[in-house]
């Protein structure tokens, strides 16, 4: 079935259990799906935009309240909607990273963090993880000292991903922020895989900037996200325009420079806002979701040769598996090669693993019911047995 002449209707989440690592947390809630139907037109939130003509002041729909609620939810002082977490990184890097200034990132920093540094002209310095794939405060301290020795100046910013996209491991952000602040280095916490999924308290983490992704973890349409900060930093990052036209002397009110004025002016903002009451509640169910994930991982580990590359027991739903010595051994002799696994999964109504992957692959079973999680676990074991692997 098509939506239009050449655009196929997307029915993935109506027909399959979808464990795509980047899609699970962004699946819309019922209320968001309804809101999307109503607010699909371009500037749809601007019907009642009044002075001072800025997104975070619109009362109807209640965006002004939503901005305040978001800040409160994250336990930060001020929040703004941004078109994806990456635009939050970009705004912060542009404000704090000068040309050739060193910036600390980590081995697991998302590529868009690097691009934001590149755009600002900064020099990246990476912090490596330990053997357990965790970024430690000690490693951060060592790297700061390295930078200081080499550059004679301190890094202008530190990026730390609370949950990294490669392993789904949870990193000690609070301790890292403490170290960083001992050197007066501002800290940006990338919460793309945590904000909206699990409880996140910006004040407790002690970070200067907390960035979340609407489409990755807040059940919102893409591109959407949130950039939250403290009162002190808000004056810098959300500074308002001062520019004037040289001939006309035009000025631009209280538009925020780093936000390029208004950010999400339609379906993205409303979708995110419609999901928010559910998101605010669902973070308290995170442990249940982690329990289901561990059940699925345990089932995979019961297949001889399978290993989990993420920290285990799992503390997050995003998980990286290594089935080089199990599912991949079958792929070598299978007529469908590595595609047999996704084919067998789809035959059971499951999707989201990269087609062809039988060695190292990721899944995110976030949002499944207990019944669906059990079915997924059992399906992996059945596929293994059917293909001659030992399940113990």
């Amino acid at each position, binding site marked *: 079935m098509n939506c239009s002449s050449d655009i196929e209707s997307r029915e993935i*989440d*109506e027909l*399959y*259990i979808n464990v795509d690592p980047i899609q699970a947390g962004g699946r819309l809630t*019922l209320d968001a799906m309804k809101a999307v139907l*109503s607010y699909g037109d371009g500037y749809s939130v601007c019907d009642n935009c009044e002075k001072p003509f800025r997104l975070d002041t619109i009362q109807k729909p209640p965006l002004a309240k939503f901005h305040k609620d978001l800040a409160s939810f994250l336990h930060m002082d001020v929040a703004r909607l941004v078109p994806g977490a990456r635009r939050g990184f970009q705004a912060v890097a542009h404000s704090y990273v000068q040309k050739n200034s060193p910036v600390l990132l980590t081995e697991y920093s998302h590529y868009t963090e690097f691009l934001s540094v590149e755009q600002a002209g900064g020099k990246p310095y990476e912090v490596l993880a330990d053997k357990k794939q965790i970024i430690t405060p000690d490693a951060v301290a060592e790297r700061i000292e390295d930078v200081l020795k080499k550059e004679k100046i301190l890094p202008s910013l530190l990026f730390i991903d609370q949950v990294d996209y490669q392993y789904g491991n949870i990193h000690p952000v609070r301790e890292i922020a403490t170290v960083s602040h001992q050197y007066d280095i501002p800290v940006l916490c990338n919460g793309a895989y945590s904000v909206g999924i699990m409880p996140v308290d910006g004040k407790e983490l002690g970070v200067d900037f907390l960035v979340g992704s609407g489409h990755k973890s807040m059940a919102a349409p893409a591109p959407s996200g949130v950039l939250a900060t403290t009162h002190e930093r808000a004056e810098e990052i959300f500074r308002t325009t001062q520019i004037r036209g040289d001939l006309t002397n035009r000025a631009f009110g209280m538009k925020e420079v780093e936000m390029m004025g208004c950010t999400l002016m339609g379906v993205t903002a409303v979708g995110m806002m419609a999901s928010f009451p559910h998101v605010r509640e669902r973070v308290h169910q995170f442990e249940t979701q982690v329990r289901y994930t561990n059940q699925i991982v345990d089932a995979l580990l019961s297949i001889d040769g399978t290993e989990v590359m993420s920290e285990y027991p799992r503390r997050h739903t995003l998980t990286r598996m290594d089935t080089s010595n199990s599912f991949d051994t079958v792929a070598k002799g299978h007529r469908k090669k590595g595609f047999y696994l996704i084919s067998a999964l789809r035959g059971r109504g499951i999707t989201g693993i990269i087609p062809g992957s039988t060695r190292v692959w990721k899944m995110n079973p976030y949002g499944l019911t207990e019944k669906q999680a059990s*079915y997924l676990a059992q399906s992996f074991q059945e596929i293994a047995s059917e293909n001659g692997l030992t399940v113990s």
Partner: protein
Amino acid sequence: MSKRAVEAVFQGLFLFTEIRQIFRDTVPDHVLDQDQRIKVEKILVKLEKQLAIIKEEMLQ
């Protein structure tokens, strides 16, 4: 045509979306439990009402 018909269309879309959500909640087998069956029945009754409004407003 009227605001009433427009609202019936939106109400219908929202009701269909509720059915869509039930598909999502029950993948991959779409086997409904008793509560879900009752919910679908109620949705369908409401949908029929909205269709009737649309017919009345747009075709009569």
